[in-house]
């Protein structure tokens, strides 16, 4: 049960990561920072202003989306053709965010309220909050599917991911499409941050584990594939929970890395290959 719930969250993070990579060809190591920003934005709204957690959710949606947009428009846009510079810039940004959060909020883990309280009295009791997080994650994933496949902008994003030149020929501004994917990815990661924080806690380095997991998930599912990311997230999520329940909790992080290495060696294109190939 834990695995089903947590996997949906991982999918939320991984989709943003794969979107940016699939569409823009950019490896965004600052994706984890969006998670942290989302969680702390929600914390700030609920603690400093004393507002309801649903206002916190708005913060967790808007602030990371703005951060992500700014990072793309202000920095990455100018260096996106140089993968090494992109990696350095995004890595440095994520470390800087961690440090800024430490300075502003301290190193201790912080509590973000549950979206809803209470328990369902089935299967020995399940937190309503968990179920809601699970449901919301799926709603968001579904929405993204719909947007990408059925709206004009979504189709334009898809076109850009297939070939930026071709898209430009039919009048699609690829820069704008890249910006949209960054905003989407930031918002998704931010909400995932809020969900994670409401289930666990918010801490300055909370974005790291999901980022590393995203690597495994995205490689497993096939880089650039949304469907692959969802399935990859479930495989990794189950593997993680299984290791924790029946193995040792200290091996949890290792399991997904082993999968990453195996897939890279055996089936580097992942389970679903790359849907958006040039």
């Amino acid at each position: 049960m834990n695995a089903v719930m947590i996997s949906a969250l991982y999918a939320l993070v991984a989709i943003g990561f794969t979107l940016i990579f699939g569409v823009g060809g950019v490896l965004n190591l600052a994706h984890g920072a969006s998670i942290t920003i989302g969680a702390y934005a929600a914390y700030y709204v609920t603690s400093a202003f004393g507002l309801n957690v649903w206002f916190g959710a708005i913060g967790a949606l808007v602030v990371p989306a703005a951060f992500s947009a700014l990072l793309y428009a202000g920095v990455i846009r100018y260096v996106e053709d140089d993968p090494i510079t992109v990696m350095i810039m995004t890595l440095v940004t994520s470390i800087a965010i961690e440090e800024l959060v430490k300075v502003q909020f301290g190193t201790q883990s912080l509590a973000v309220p549950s979206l809803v309280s209470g328990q369902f009295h089935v299967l020995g009791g399940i937190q309503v909050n968990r179920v809601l997080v699970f449901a919301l994650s799926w709603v968001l994933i579904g929405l993204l599917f719909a947007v990408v496949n059925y709206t004009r902008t979504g189709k334009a994003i898809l076109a850009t991911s297939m070939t930026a030149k071709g898209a430009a020929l039919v009048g699609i501004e690829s820069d704008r499409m890249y910006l949209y994917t960054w905003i989407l990815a930031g918002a998704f990661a931010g909400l995932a941050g809020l969900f994670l924080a409401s289930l666990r806690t918010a801490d300055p380095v909370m974005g790291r584990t999901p980022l590393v997991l995203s690597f495994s998930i995205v490689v497993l599912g096939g880089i650039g594939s949304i469907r692959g990311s969802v399935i990859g997230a479930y495989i990794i999520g189950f593997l993680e929970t299984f290791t924790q329940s029946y193995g040792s909790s200290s091996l949890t992080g290792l399991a997904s890395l082993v999968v990453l290495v195996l897939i890279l060696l055996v089936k580097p294109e992942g389970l679903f290959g790359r849907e958006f190939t040039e």
Partner: protein
Amino acid sequence: MVNEDSQSGNSDCSGSESGEKRNIVSNLRRASDRRTVLKATGLAGLTATAGCLGGGSGSSGPSGTFKIGVLAPEPEKNPIGASIANSAKLARDELNENGGVLGNDVEVIVKDTKEKPGVGKDKYQDLTVGENVDFTAGVFTSEVQLALMDSIAEQETVHMDTGAATPEASTMVKDDYDKYKYFFRTGPVNSHFLGQNMVDFASQNFSEMGWDSVYVLVEDYAWTKPVQEVVKNKLSDQGVDVKNVKRYAASTEDFSTIYDKIENSGADAAYVAMAHTGTPAILQWAKQQRPFEFGGIHVPMQLPSYYSAVKGACRYAVTQNSATPTSEVTSKTVPYANAYKKNYEKFPVYTGYITYDAVHQYAQVAEDQDSRKADDIISGLEDSSFTGTAGTIRYYGKDEEYPHDVVYDKTGENGVQPLWLQWQEKSGSGSQVAIFPDDIATGSYKTPPWI
């Protein structure tokens, strides 16, 4: 004079260091191949180390301003580190108001260990070699404390540990007294005794609390190993049904699967030892309203402002602590906590009480011995019985099992005895209610309503 000599020696040392740094930079700029750079860096490093290693404070002790070197983890951001740093400063101000130590002004120099052994070693070197301090105090993480042991021996400068609990440090004093005698632990009681205290608490309180069976949960850090050992060996002798003793990874963020196991075991309570990972654990316990009670050594819960930080999640949970702002462990406890709050706006955590005691005890011993020589101080500390804020501070002797560790005494008369508290809600806000030992208890244990 000796001090002046050694200080000028130090300035030479740092001078040559910066000179070499400049050389490295210019080498880096000029170097056409990496080997040259590597060679240059290696050489510079070697000379710098050789230049700076020159041994300790010498035989006649420091003179001039009485300097205290303080090592604290992130004193700006972390309440544990802030309590160490601020309490040393508070003690400094009080000493200066009363004429200083042996007629000298007292100065406190704080360095950040960042909870990293390597950083801790560098900062220790800065304090002893660079600043020539009388003694050092602080250190929270056991891993950092252990990394410092050889440097402490080399510098022959007394170190008062006020946060790290690993007994490995005092075992080193036992194994090679002459080398490691400079190490003292003012508190907390070492983690062997932390475990013993958990057993003692269980034997005297569990039946009344209704904790007939427990699931022991310890985080995987150096300090919990002896705790785990003692609890594993002795807890079931107290008539407690120990369902399991689980050591979980330091990186654990999600406790769901662990809590499922506790639930399935049918244990009445989780009996824990947590410092670094405590907050996610307590939040998930409370939010998920797990059907078992929660208590043990939970370091974050010792923080007086914790209730608001976790929005009340710690309500009904129990933790051991050195002291609380309202508990009269000794006549000094409450006045210290209030003075701290007045100066720094918040109440301190346990490392604060201990650091404050360490500084005052050291100053007292220096006055009594009329000396600042390390050897005089060491024999003074070994004989000292000092009433601090956390209890009666005495140290185990050279021939005992844990030399230079603060004495644990379950009666609290001839040593320190940690207290136990439960977070309860009083008129809308959280309160650390002392529930044990009886002479300082201000309330009794309450079972969470969802159980």
